[in-house]
């Protein structure tokens, strides 16, 4: 991603270009989620650096990291992580509250975001009233509401059936392709990575063991990838 240079976990050094769709693969405990948390600014490296848009995340204060998460990053989790007591609209507009956006503007943006994931009719429902796929779409809408440069997805289809998982992945690919959004996705499903990502990075025991273009890049015309 531009000048972003990532060195994470144990001797892991990788670079993601702007607009790239990268999949981090590995077995459980391989360190892929740790790498994602470092990129998200949720965790700090004990040594080394995580550079995003020219800024070393390791050197940012807690307040600066919060701003980074608010404006640069959008996150999607395996367990959706929607707040159960809030409606979908409230969940989606929550990052805008932290960004101090006006109420009316927030409502408009939330409606638009939910519309983009096909949930405009479910705005006033609570997460518990929705299916897993709908919840993940809502989580996607929330991740995109601040128009982030970087979408981080941690096992986004892990709790979904294959058909719903495909729907979600199609949406993610759409955002990557149409909006030029950089996507870093953690998954343990190689097939999923091969189908949607342009590049696959394999981790094992916290180390980078392989970095290769995926089948989708080899077999079809790459989208949004800077050479």
């Amino acid at each position, binding site marked *: 991603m531009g000048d972003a240079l990532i060195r994470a976990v144990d001797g892991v050094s990788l670079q993601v270009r702007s607009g790239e769709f990268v999949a981090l693969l590995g077995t459980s405990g391989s360190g892929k989620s740790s790498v994602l948390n470092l990129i998200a600014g949720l965790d700090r490296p004990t040594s080394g650096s995580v550079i995003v848009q020219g800024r070393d995340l390791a050197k940012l204060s*807690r307040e600066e990291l919060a*701003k980074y998460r*608010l404006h640069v990053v959008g*996150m999607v989790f395996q367990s959706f992580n929607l707040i159960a007591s809030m409606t979908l609209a409230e969940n989606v507009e*929550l990052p805008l509250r*932290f960004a*101090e956006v006006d109420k009316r503007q927030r409502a408009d943006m939330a409606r638009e975001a939910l519309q983009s994931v096909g949930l405009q009719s479910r705005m006033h429902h609570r997460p518990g009233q929705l299916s897993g796929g709908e919840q993940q779409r809502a989580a996607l809408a929330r991740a995109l509401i601040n128009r982030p440069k970087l979408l981080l997805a941690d096992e986004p289809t892990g709790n979904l059936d294959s058909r719903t998982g495909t729907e979600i992945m199609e949406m993610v690919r759409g955002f990557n392709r149409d909006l030029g959004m950089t996507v870093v996705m953690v998954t343990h499903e190689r097939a999923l990575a091969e189908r949607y990502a342009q590049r696959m990075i394999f981790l094992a025991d916290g180390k980078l063991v392989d970095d290769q273009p995926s089948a989708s890049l080899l077999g079809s015309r790459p989208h949004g990838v800077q050479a």
Partner: protein
Amino acid sequence: MKVPDLTELALRNLRESLLRNSLTTVGISVGVASLVAMLSLGIGLQQMASRRLVKSGLFDTIVVTSRRELRGMGREEERTGPTPGESRVLDEPARLAIEHLPNVSEAYPDIRFVTELRFDEKPHLTMISALPASAKSNDAFEGMQGSFFSSDTAPEVILQKSFAEELLGKTPKLGAPEPSVAELAAPLLGKEMTMRYAQRATTPAQPSPAQLAPISPSPASSPDIDLSGASYSVISRELNLKIVGVSDLDPESMRGPMRAKVFLPLKLAESLHVMQPTDLREVSRAASDQPVYSSISVRVKNPSQVQPVEDAIKKMGFTTFSILDASRGLRQFFAVLYAFLGIFGSLALMVASIGIVNTLVMAILERRREIGIMKAIGASDGDIKKLFFAEAGAMGILGGIVGVIFGWAIGQLINFGTNVYLRRQSLPPEHFWAVPWWLVGGAILFSAGVSLISGLYPAGRAARLDPVQALRYE
């Protein structure tokens, strides 16, 4: 995060754990109610004491005497001011001048004399005092049987209880129960009695014979030059008076003109021109139509204005006396009382504040994941801290409002119960419970303040949560 958003989120979170947060808020309300109840009792008691003191006339009254009065000798103003012989005479123009001073509500002469009253053909020698119409509101007449004077000139008397006992020959023996005022008043009210008194009457001026010289002041040394040679006569008079009231006022209490056993309306007493002890000292004045007073009682509009009025009267050349210092002591006493009541009242609120800490710490545990989500999507430590602060503050304000209402209701209930008891004891009802606006506002602010302080630790703890750990929490 903006304040309205923060408030909205805080209230939403409070609604989510309604029972627990309601119980915590009730705890705060009880604390605030106890604080309000304690302080309003203190304030009410102070107001009642002040009302009583103001009504008693002790704190808003200045007694003015002329420096010619021998009893004032030796005071500082006596030593520094004009000599008693040169000082101003306390006469009607002086009374009017004093009455026109700022903040003075009235200035009336203290007319008191010893004379004979006949009732049922029996003579009774006693001290008689004149009362102004304003004395009607004095608490001394609260337990009175009958009524106050129908007018300021009516030929009516009010008797003191012990004098009524004397008239009826019912003076109780030592240790025996005293008859009630009502018992004494029944046979006396409406009856007439005759007062015999010495009236001072002016007579035409005469040439100064040699034998009068020692009595008449020397023209060269006195400002009363025009009255030299004047004389007066003393005429014995009788006046029928109707008994209209019997009071249980203690004649020995310090109440200025009320230190007597029989009371007359002031204007009536003035019109009688009763021979006063001062007439013997102010010989030349006594011969004029203008009366000379031994002392004047000056009532000021507010006890706080006693000092400036007293200073103004002193500047006029008179001696003054008030018991202002006693009211200062009273204020000090109530300040200490407030402090103690406030401390005891706050204890319950302190206990409630522990409830807030507990509730919020529980909320952190329950909402750990939610805090993690908020941080992951961009909430700063400050946002999380403010959110918990807002929740603590909302509980504090809500608890404060409910507590003030609760405390006010407790006060009304106790006031009502006590007044029922007072009525059963044949005592007048009292309002000894007061919740001023500053207490309402102060209690709510104090409650919010204590709640915010209680929220410091949980808010800090929530803000420091590691988002990765929090997101892993199930």
